[in-house]
């Protein structure tokens, strides 16, 4: 299968690889996918007091398109508010990376991962407030 240059670039030079400290209350973690399906993404975001994502890190087990989708996502969510980040659509990721139809699920997974990370962060805030 031929990959687009953008997929290759993210795959060769993945951005923001790693994990933020999940015990920190300002960090939200989203882990989506399953080994059985061939991809697992783990996205961690650090949110500042104004609700802006100041840092994002990922690790992904999956094909090149899955790695590229999550790498691109970390670039996009940095500096965005939680609301803005929640608006990111998988179709935008798929379009940016020129994913072929069989790889659309990779972009869906990336969208799911930011939603999950935001939900995790919000849940943590409720607990802290109580």
């Amino acid at each position, binding site marked *: 299968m031929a990959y687009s240059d953008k997929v290759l670039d993210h795959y060769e030079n993945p951005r923001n690889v790693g*994990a933020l400290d999940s015990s920190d209350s300002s960090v939200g973690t989203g882990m989506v996918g399953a080994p*059985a*399906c*061939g991809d*697992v993404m783990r996205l961690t975001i650090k949110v500042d007091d104004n609700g802006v994502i100041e840092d994002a890190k990922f690790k992904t*087990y999956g*094909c090149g398109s899955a790695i590229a989708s999550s790498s691109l996502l970390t670039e996009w969510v940095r500096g965005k508010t939680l609301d803005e980040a929640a608006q990111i659509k998988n179709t935008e990721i798929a379009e940016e990376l020129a994913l072929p139809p069989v790889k659309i699920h990779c972009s869906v997974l990336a969208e799911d991962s930011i939603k999950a990370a935001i939900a995790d962060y919000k849940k943590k805030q409720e607990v802290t407030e109580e």
Partner: protein
Amino acid sequence: MKLPIYMDYSATTPVDPRVAEKMMQCLTMDGNFGNPASRSHEYGWNAEKVVDEARQHVAELINCDPREVIWTSGATESNNLAIKGVANFHSKKGKHIITSKTEHKAVLDTCRHLEAQGFEVTYLDPEANGLIDLKKLEAAIREDTILVSLMHVNNEIGVVTDIAAIGEMTRARKILFHVDAAQSAGKVTIDLQNMKVDLMSFSGHKIYGPKGVGALFVRRKPRVRLEAQMHGGGHERGMRSGTLATHQIAGMGEAFRIAKAEMEQENERVMALRQRLWDGLQEIEEIYVNGDFDHRVAGNLNVSFNFVEGESLIMALRELAVSSGSACTSASLEPSYVLRALGRNDELAHSSIRFSIGRFTTEQDIDHAISLIQGSVSKLRELSPLWDMYKDGIDLSTIEWTAH
């Protein structure tokens, strides 16, 4: 750009230059282009002579009578002819067929087709090492079993089936035994004078011959009857009509001749190369060989790299031409059905790479491959959340995944 190092000999092999030379002699006006079925002139006689010689070479490698060799378009057609041909001819005697879950699609799909026509098929589960337990095979045999079809060497994991023992079992019960030997000819000794195999499929292009040609061995004593699947001029004793492709057949014959002459040395050399590859890969943590290590052909090494996804690994290994699963299924996102049948968990089934080496593989190729693989696996593991979790001592099977 430099082409990748070819390590996919189980998918297909390059044609040996000696084979190509033979083929070229059977094409043009000044060559041997005649129709082997033409009885009325020298062009036909000469072409027939080439076909007979090729038949002789095939028969010599597998130790059978040349009259037992039927030319086909490839192992897929041979498998179709053997299984459908036997099933259709013997359906009054019984409608039960036994095969295994790790067969090539050419066998599995043919069996599915017969199921739709009212035949019953038992798909045996292989053991975790990929081999068939003869006791389980014996237990699956019924009064109405007419055919057992099992492959000699598995295309993905390279394990070798004990066809001699199975032949004894089927012959004693008057059940026909078909063997798909596409992956074994020229790599494992085949002795049809002594092995009680009734039908055996062969391919040209897995053994340094051309694509588009194959053969089916159909035993004469005791005589095996089957119904033709291709009707026409009654070529090949009526079992497979169609003008013989002289140049393809000449190529396949030469490939089998070379295999007979050089198999022993070649196996020794290829085995040493595989050992070199394995010695290099063994330094990597959490890797698993798929299929029995000892009962396998020299050229095959199928390995799972835990916590690394196969497709991304293949992408990282762009300088190596290898495959994840078999070539026939690598366009799909499903993990290998062969590894699934072995009971490999999903992670390992998703992370398998088949290295298959052969006649033109060099030590330099192997050494380069080892360093590429080591680098790629460690890079991808740095990216893998599963690897992190493994390193943190988390048992991945205890996690509730969000399957999608």
